């Protein structure tokens, strides 16, 4: 049991590091691909952590914070999912089964912070602003910004500590078709993420490049890295052509 406590503390710290990404430049190291590796590192199975991280990353692909929409809390999902698989030596697919529901649950908690606690802090800051007290705002901002991350990582750590024995009992009674179903879903869900990203980027002129990328990999078996390098060439050609065109247009205006 002592062992579990140590692991829970390490897991809490990793989660805190992950949540802090938005305090140190939105570096996206809260994504499962990095979180999985960090959990693996502290729990002594780096390789498994990396592999699970990569799998979960694809599942959470479409989870991006744009405008007022907040994605499932992937830090908690990735951290607890990965940690559980490593600690109880479970199948890698189990990480997906756990990560998706956990991430959705913790988002509810985070939503409470973002709709009640943080606005409340902002209203305190408003009072300081009205008094011209910049130091007061500095204080409130630091407490609010770091505080909500402390709370979230404690939620992750405590859930892990209390949850692991419980998860093991629950998983023992879950029928095989459900756990296998999550495995199958993990293969399909990336399509949803890709569709969400494509929605952001597609225009009538550029939709052909989506198909080109698909065909290069489907028929020629080109790895994604190769396609990305090819895409870079295409992008550079486009930039060059467009720049020449705009320079001409500006010249035309001048004369």
């Amino acid at each position: 049991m002592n062992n579990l406590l140590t692991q829970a503390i390490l897991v809490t710290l990793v989660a805190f590091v992950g949540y802090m990404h938005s305090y140190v430049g939105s570096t996206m190291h809260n994504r499962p691909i990095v979180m999985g590796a960090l959990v693996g590192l502290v729990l002594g199975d780096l390789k498994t952590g990396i592999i699970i991280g990569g799998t979960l990353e694809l599942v959470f692909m479409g989870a991006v914070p744009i405008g007022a929409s907040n994605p499932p809390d992937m830090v908690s999902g990735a951290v607890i999912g990965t940690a559980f698989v490593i600690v109880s030596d479970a199948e890698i697919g189990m990480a997906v089964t756990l990560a998706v529901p956990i991430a959705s649950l913790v988002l509810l908690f985070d939503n409470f912070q973002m709709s009640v606690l943080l606005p409340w802090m902002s209203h305190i800051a408003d009072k300081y602003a009205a008094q011209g007290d910049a130091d007061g705002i500095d204080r409130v901002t630091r407490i609010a910004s770091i505080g909500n991350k402390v709370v979230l990582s404690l939620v992750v750590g405590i859930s892990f500590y209390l949850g692991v024995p419980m998860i093991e009992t629950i998983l023992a009674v879950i029928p095989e078709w459900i756990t296998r179903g999550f495995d199958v879903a993990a293969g399909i869900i990336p399509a949803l993420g890709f569709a969400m990203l494509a929605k952001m980027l597609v225009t009538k002129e550029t939709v052909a490049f989506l198909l080109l990328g698909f065909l290069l990999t489907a028929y020629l078996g080109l790895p994604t890295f190769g396609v990305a390098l090819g895409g870079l060439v295409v992008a550079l050609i486009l930039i060059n052509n467009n720049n020449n065109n705009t320079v001409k247009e500006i010249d035309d205006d001048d004369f």
Partner: protein
Amino acid sequence: MTSNTKKITQSDLNKVFLRSCTLDSGWDYERQQHLNFCFTMIPVLRRLYGDDKEKMAAALQRHMEFMSCTPHIVTLLAGIVAAMEEENANSEEFDETSIPAVKTSLMGPMAGIGDSFFWGTLLTIAVGIGCSLSAQGSIAGPIVFFLIINVPGFLSRYYGLKYGYELGSKFFSDAKSQAIIANVTKAAGVLGLMVIGSMVASQVSIDLAVMVGSGDLAMPLSEYISWIMPCFLPLCTFILMYYLLGKNVKSTTILFCVIIISCLGCLVGIF
């Protein structure tokens, strides 16, 4: 110029740079990034209005208003705002309502470009390359992922502030800088789309357990389908998802439907 001319120093800008990194960390549903944007501007405001409580209060309140922008490029806006605040502090005639006006009118279009570049294109490329390395258990996966996001992220954060402050509100009326941004955004989008296409083929997997034919001639249905076209099912799934999103079906709804269908499929033996 008189001795009262107030000038923002490089060290103020450095502080703005560091503070801008926290932009998303105090996010709330009411005014989104306002608290951290105000926090970001404070070093500048201290320099300009440090000796005048009333002007300081007005400036702080100005920046406590609603704010929503992509964190990696918010420094461009912060630079423009800093230049305007400087003008405001030094000139009686400056209309200070133009500061929130410019801020509000720029954050929308900037977020449009920035979100699709950083959370769209760049993340796609980083995931595409990172995950293929991670799948083999290589530590290069997360490291390469991190670098692809953060080298451009911190470069744009640094140069955004520099050019934003130097050009001030002129930045967006400058046709040349606008043309460059539009070009780079479009080209990067093309690269991102190619990577998405490639990943639809390599990362989406659907294996049907259904067999066709009988006895020794029995073959998995998946194999027949891949004769039509390799990765045909992943492509169809992708198109279906894209269509559903276009019909404004929520992504979480689709997510849970996929999980339910997968489980039921396993139960009846389709998968």
